[in-house]
């Protein structure tokens, strides 16, 4: 079975501006695939390139194994859900959903039947005759999904469709989208800047920055095994400490930092003498380092008690702020601002990555 979507050396430039640079990617059929990145990172451009609104400046887009060069968005087996949904306000809910079928010349009774089924699928059976403006945000969302599914695309593209919803609805729609994807079994390509969305819904995630796909992997891989400093700091909270590698020991390495000698895992095989960044997640920080943990001291700036976990912000010797999320069991009493704490971490919980040149 051919891959759902393949990108091969895709470049998109607007004048001098490089929006997407050398994107190579294979998305499997039935996969829930997310592009995660800050705004302006090129993820929407990439989505529009897949849907056919933008032709790549260089490279090839293949959908279901077929080269899409010169094939317009109306001829591609993709359907796009827009950020603002772009429902047709002058049509009813049923007419909106049936639009793609009407365009294809599907006979009326067949169309009505299909629209009815879709309305049931997205739990809007009673709302077919309504105007779009009469619906709530979540209902509009479901109309947009049904309208896109009606044309039976092999790939559904979603451009941050949940960003306009309030938090509660957004969380509800996450699981609903995931359920719909499981039910219809087609490939979903999802664009978001919200790492929570990407992590909870996706089979795999591509993290993008400045037009470049930095890393592709499942949620755990991009969170726990980031391969670039951008991925490490963009996905989840992370503390980063600058230093220089002084020794290598198998999968581990030691580095000299302004906070003292620290150690961490060395997955990208940095050499002695190289400039490096040590990434330590707040949740692996431990209080009052004993012999097994490297550590440093800091002055408590802020304490945020959240029940099961307490977020402590420290200012260390270099003036840098370091975050530590400490479990309830680790704290006998809450630290007070101004108090000096000694914190540390196990070297196997920290990660060493090459320091990019411009920093």
């Amino acid at each position, binding site marked *: 079975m051919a891959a759902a979507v393949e990108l091969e050396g895709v470049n998109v430039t607007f004048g001098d501006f490089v929006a997407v640079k050398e994107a190579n990617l294979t998305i499997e059929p039935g996969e829930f695939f997310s592009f995660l990145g800050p705004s302006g990172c090129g993820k929407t451009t990439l989505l529009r390139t897949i*849907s*056919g*609104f933008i032709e790549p400046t260089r490279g090839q887009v293949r959908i279901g194994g077929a080269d899409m060069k010169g094939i*317009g*968005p*109306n*001829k591609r087996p*993709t*359907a*796009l859900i*827009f*950020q*603002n949904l*772009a*429902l*047709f*306000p*002058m049509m009813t809910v049923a007419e909106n959903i049936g*639009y*793609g079928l009407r*365009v*294809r010349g599907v006979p009326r009774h067949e169309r009505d039947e299909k629209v009815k089924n879709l309305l049931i699928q997205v739990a809007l059976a009673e709302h077919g005759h309504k105007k779009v403006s009469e619906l709530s945000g979540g209902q509009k969302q479901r109309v947009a999904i049904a*309208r*896109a599914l009606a*044309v039976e695309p092999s790939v559904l593209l979603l451009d941050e469709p949940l960003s306009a919803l309030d938090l509660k609805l957004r969380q509800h729609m996450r699981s609903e989208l995931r359920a719909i994807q499981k039910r219809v079994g087609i490939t979903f390509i999802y664009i978001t800047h919200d790492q929570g969305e990407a992590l909870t819904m996706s089979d795999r995630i591509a993290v993008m920055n400045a037009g470049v796909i930095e890393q592709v992997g499942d949620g755990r891989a991009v969170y726990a095994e980031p391969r670039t400093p951008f991925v490490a700091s963009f996905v989840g909270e992370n503390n980063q400490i600058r230093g220089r590698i002084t020794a290598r020991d198998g999968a581990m390495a030691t580095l000299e930092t302004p906070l003292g000698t620290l150690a961490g895992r060395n997955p990208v095989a940095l050499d002695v003498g190289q400039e490096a960044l040590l990434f330590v997640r707040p949740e692996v920080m431990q209080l009052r380092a004993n012999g097994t943990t490297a550590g440093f001291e800091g002055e408590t700036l802020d304490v945020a008690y959240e029940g099961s976990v307490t977020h402590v912000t420290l200012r260390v010797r270099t003036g840098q702020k370091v975050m530590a999320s400490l479990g309830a069991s680790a704290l006998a009493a809450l630290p007070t601002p101004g108090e000096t704490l000694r914190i540390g971490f196990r070297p196997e919980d920290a990660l060493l990555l090459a320091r990019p040149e411009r920093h």
Partner: protein
Amino acid sequence: MSGSLAFVFGLPLAVVVFFFALAAYERRTGVANGGGFFQRNGLAIGLYLVLAVGFWAFFIILLPQLAMVDMSFRPKLPPSQMGGPKDLYTLENYRYFLFGSTTSTAEWNWLHIKAFFLTIGVSIIITLINFAICYPLAFHMAQSATAARLRVLLLLLILPYWVNEILRAFAFRVLLSSGGIINQMLMGSGLTSEPIDFLGADVGLYMGLSYAYLLMMIFPLYNAIESLDKNQVEAARDLGAPWWHIHAFIVLPHAKPGIASGCTLVFMLTAGALAAPLVLGGPRTLWFTPIVYDRFYQAFNWPQGAAYAFILLVSCIIFVLVVLKAFRLSLGEITR
């Protein structure tokens, strides 16, 4: 005379009082809230606005029209007999339009009736031509042109209208006449041996009329299409719609109020145009507005002229309202 004086000053006063009462009622029932009109503008400016707008609406717009309507129902009399025993309300001016005589109803006044329907019919055609010309341009300007291109287009559209209407009409005449540039080029290239009588065939008239009110169509269309979310066009395309389907079922329904507004303006103005028909009309074509003009200034029959003008006005208004109704649009919508 004192009766009409009371009318002239009493009616505006009555209107003002009515609106004050309406405002007070809305305030009390909570329909309107926020600062009052005079609180917001101050007494002096508020009073000035009320009086100035009232004066403008009544004296400049309503009163002359009412005077025309009144005149159209009176017989033509020498000044000495006006207001005398013979000055009675009559339908003879309207009768003349239909039957060509103030007394007999034996024969239809085909000359004028034909001119009337020709005017309406051609105005409809010109409105449609105008729409066909302007829609692609307005769509391009509103949806795909860059800001720089848009500025150039707007300038190119507006500049020709600095030249006045009569001059433009004569320019068309010069261009299209038997010895004009177009005929010279056609004959020079050997396409025809004889000059083509564009003016006699009314090509000039239709061109001049179409051109005269182009802007009245462009701008409402542009405004309407501009407010369409580009994503909707893209969504339709993404769902597989060919371009004509997008225009027919997405863009046109959205732009309906703008289309109605533009078409109404162009139709009304074309049907009432005087300069272009006078200058560019062929010898065999009798447009209705020159007939109205002739009633006033050739026949010196102002009541009859008033009746003719009133017939044209009412017919146009009725026609527009019927068309709006057919397209399920309200007057309020087209002013958006």
